[in-house]
């Protein structure tokens, strides 16, 4: 009997921790998303400046590669892997553009682009990093909530016996 009580106590303490962690994760996700939002806002502003400088026809989706364009390698790739507890985690693999295997996408808009386009590119890259982190946190949060639910059911079973 004493073992069960101790077991229950441990479960409850874990539940406490899980609950607090859920809140911490929520806070973190919100912070990360705000960061991503700020980066996106900056990127959009700089992109708009570039369009103002170069004219809106020279920076538009007309310049983007189409299906008929030659193939190119993606600069950034997202990898998905499970950590040791089965939670999906994403990580980013970035490459430096070297004009051979990895092209710099700002070259699509001409060879002499204003600095604003490069700023925008950097900011969007940052936003991507933040978003991947936010997605990781979100996965952990989901796992956390699932565990809370499962532990609660277990606790109910144990305490009713």
């Amino acid at each position, binding site marked *: 009997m004493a073992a069960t009580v101790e077991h229950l106590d441990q479960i409850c303490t874990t539940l406490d921790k899980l609950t*607090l962690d859920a809140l911490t994760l929520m806070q973190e996700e919100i912070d990360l998303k705000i960061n991503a939002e700020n980066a996106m806002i900056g990127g959009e502003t700089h992109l708009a400046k570039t369009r103002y400088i170069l004219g809106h026809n020279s920076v538009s989706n007309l310049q983007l590669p189409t299906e008929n364009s030659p193939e190119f390698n993606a600069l950034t790739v997202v990898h998905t892997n499970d950590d040791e507890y089965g939670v999906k985690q994403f990580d980013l693999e970035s490459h430096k553009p070297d004009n051979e295997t990895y092209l710099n996408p700002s070259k699509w808009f001409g060879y002499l682009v204003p600095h604003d386009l490069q700023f925008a590119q950097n900011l969007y890259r940052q936003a991507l990093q933040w978003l991947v982190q936010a997605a990781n946190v979100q996965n952990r949060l989901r796992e956390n909530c699932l565990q809370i639910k499962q532990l609660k059911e277990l606790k109910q079973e144990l305490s009713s016996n």
Partner: protein
Amino acid sequence: MTTHIGQIKHSQVSVAPSKAFLDYIRSIKALDEDIPLGLQNIICKNKSKDSPTVKQPKGGYLITDKEKKFISSLELPEGKQLWKDLPLKPQTSLPDDTLLTLQDLHWLFRHIQAENRTCDANSKVYLHELLENSEIVLPKNEEIPRNRELEKRCQKLKAEQQNREYQNMTKNVDGFRRKLPEDTISYQLKMMNTHLIAVFQFIVSVLAGFAFGFIGIELLVGSLDFGFRLMLGTICALVIAIAELYFLAKKLNEDLEFETKAKNAHVKVN
């Protein structure tokens, strides 16, 4: 009046405590110095007026590898329908000072753990039980009301646009009204004039270029062969013609864009 959504300013997740939780908090006896602000406001009568926007230290995670292993060692029931039976309560507005921040909750957790260690097994309190029926208050986006003057101006522009549309519609019903500028002869003439002037300018500058090559260079340098003079004049005229054509094309393109834009705007309003 329409509002715009602004950014989140204070990104604090907080918890609005339920009644049982509030009662428990009020019953806390240990009045240390380091009680966080949110709890102080509930326990003490005299509310401290410190600014709540102080950057709070990060709590850190409590789940360590030990807990994770413990969880994975348990035989957990399948809980796939996780979001089905969550009770949804209507939001009740609470005064700000009863909200608990993460810091408060972490402090409470430590406090409860310390209490639990001293008392016997039956009277233990757990934070997650206290938190049941409490409400998580997520930070909200700020709402920026629309500028009143902008609103006024928009209304005025809209009225003008509608007026113009109406006149456009009724212009061949009522013969007396000819207010639209497109209908008058003077407007047409003016438009024609601008184009004619552009063409005239083009011709004049080309002719002047030719004259410079044909006569001017001879005046500068001395007597030249007739064929050479002709060639010089043609080259000058050609260069000027090309430059002039470039500017003409650019201007015409701008005019065209402006017109299509105006048309598109017209369609959008409709």
